[in-house]
């Protein structure tokens, strides 16, 4: 039974990282209808930014802050201006393909320009384990989980409690009415992209110590984020949190109790079941079809 709880807790930590990436993903979808196939690479790039700053002599936290700023500029502003804005009016397909191209380009730029080998990355949390009622839990797991959940809750509070956040939600729900009410729609959409970039940078600092910084680290992470987002409900930002945690925990348990070879199938099976019985996701609202 202690094994079970140990797996459960480390699953929660992984799941909370999935939740961060998934949350950014759903926010982008809600605000601008962008399906970002480069979401995994959006986590990979800040990891390498931090490595760059650190090799220039900055301490970890300062590099993290600097990477956050750089991410907002590159992955937020530049991505919106350069790729999403020109393609927005052409529907889903061109944006999907452009972000696929972007993910190939980002991955291989890092591979060719930095290194193809996995890079070690310093841990934000002390290398310590605690004993809670016989269950061993590492400080990294606790720290990761707490940090990620705090970020998700802060984002939630920002969206629900502040005027700007509510304006962003209004834009996501109905762009036209929002602009009639005097909300600066392009700016709200930019804020969404900026928040996505920040969440990605935060996911990077949490995930990289365990998974190492590698050019293709985004691949599976991006996939899990998609699945988590849909399991939880694509049009609900609380869903991303729930979906991420479910995927993280189930994956860890399945790898131990069923078969590690089919670990990657877990997210998929949950996803298929959810799609079949509740296509709008566990917490999602149903969207009516229009003629």
């Amino acid at each position, binding site marked *: 039974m202690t094994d079970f709880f140990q797996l459960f807790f480390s699953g929660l930590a992984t799941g909370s990282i999935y939740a961060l990436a998934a949350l950014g993903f759903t926010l982008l*979808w809600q605000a601008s209808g962008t*399906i970002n*196939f480069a979401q995994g690479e959006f986590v990979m790039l800040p990891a390498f930014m931090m490595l760059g700053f650190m090799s220039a002599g900055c301490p970890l936290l300062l590099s993290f802050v600097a990477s956050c700023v750089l991410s907002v500029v590159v992955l937020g502003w530049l991505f919106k201006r*350069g*790729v999403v804005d*020109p*393609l927005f009016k*052409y529907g*889903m*397909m*061109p944006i*999907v*393909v*452009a972000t*696929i*191209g*972007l*993910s*190939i*380009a*980002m*991955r*291989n*730029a890092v*591979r*060719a*320009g930095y290194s193809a080998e996995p890079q070690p990355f310093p841990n934000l949390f002390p290398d310590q384990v605690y004993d809670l009622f016989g269950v061993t839990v590492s400080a990294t797991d606790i720290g990761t989980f707490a940090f990620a959940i705090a970020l998700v809750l802060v984002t939630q509070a920002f969206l629900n409690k502040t005027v700007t956040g509510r304006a962003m939600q209004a834009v996501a729900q109905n762009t036209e009415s929002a602009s009639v009410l005097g909300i600066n729609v392009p700016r709200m959409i930019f804020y969404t992209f900026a928040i996505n970039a920040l969440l990605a940078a935060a996911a990077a600092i949490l995930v990289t110590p365990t998974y190492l910084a590698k050019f293709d680290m985004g*691949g599976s992470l991006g*996939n899990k984020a*998609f*699945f988590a987002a*849909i399991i939880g409900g*694509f049009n609900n930002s609380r869903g991303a949190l729930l979906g991420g945690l479910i995927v993280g925990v189930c994956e860890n348990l399945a790898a131990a109790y069923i078969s590690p*070879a*089919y670990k*990657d*199938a877990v997210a*998929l099976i949950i*996803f*298929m079941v959810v*799609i*079949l019985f509740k*296509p709008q996701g566990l917490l999602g609202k149903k969207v009516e*079809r229009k*003629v």
Partner: protein
Amino acid sequence: MKKLGFLLGLAGLAALILVPGMLKSHGIYLFTYWLIYVIATMGLNLTVGYAGQKSLGHAAFFGIGAYTVAVMMQAGFSFWLGLPMAALGCFAVGLVLGFPALRVQTIYLAFATLGFNTAVWLVMRNEEWLTGGTFGINNIARPKALGVDFDGNLNYYYLVLGIAVVLALVLWGLLRSPWGKAFTALRDNPIRAESLGIDIRSYTLLSFAIGAAYAGVAGGLFGSLVQFIDPAPFTVDGSIMMYLMVVVGGSGYFLGPLLGAAVGVILPEWLRFAQAWYLFVFGTAVVMLMIWLPDGLLSLPDVLRAKRLSRQASADRAAAAQQHSAQGAKA
């Protein structure tokens, strides 16, 4: 215009027959590789471009086709039995995959098919007794027929070309038939199509199944071309790449796959001069291409025509305004 199109098609076909004869063996190999992807993306173009079903699981069918032929040949059956079985098998699996499409659409469907692809890939990788796992299946022979040995690269190329032409003609006929119209109706407005008496249920399933059958044939040819298969080409990335080919070439354009597959298969080879950076250049090129022509390469004539018309219209308007003001001055 129709005559011109016919002549251009004939010239293109002549080029496809003649050019590889002058190439070295790697060039012929690359052309064959390209044609195989053309066959696969023709099927995907039917599913995505004509019927409007966002499918991101096409590489799974490609893989199922390849493994069907390889496993059957290992068991001693002929390639010529394996290839139709690959098509049939994929048709059946495609029908099944069509069912989620009846419940969910757009991005949900894209991820459902993507998930299907992951599942198929996991089976290919883990079920070693059937697929050889990551070691794959070696020594897949090339076929013989009617005294012709397709072992040589050029002969095999002509075999693939022949099959590609036949499949293209079948698709052309299909798209011109009422079925083709039903597919596009399904894409443009499913509810209206249904109210006009089109059984959208069966057409959705069929669009998946026929597209999958094309991928199955392409997969069978692929295994025999490379003579070795492992799960690597049939991952989700493979599906995403095929989707990219369809959209870049021009989804819903009949000749889109020709250009799209060229971008996906031949362009990276050309970019080898950029060495380690070649995939970066490729990805950037795809992004720029999308920004320039969001509806794909084949939309270029339409874009140019629209530009010319709008220029003409604004020139006409300016002339009319001038005339109007001149009349006003006279009065």
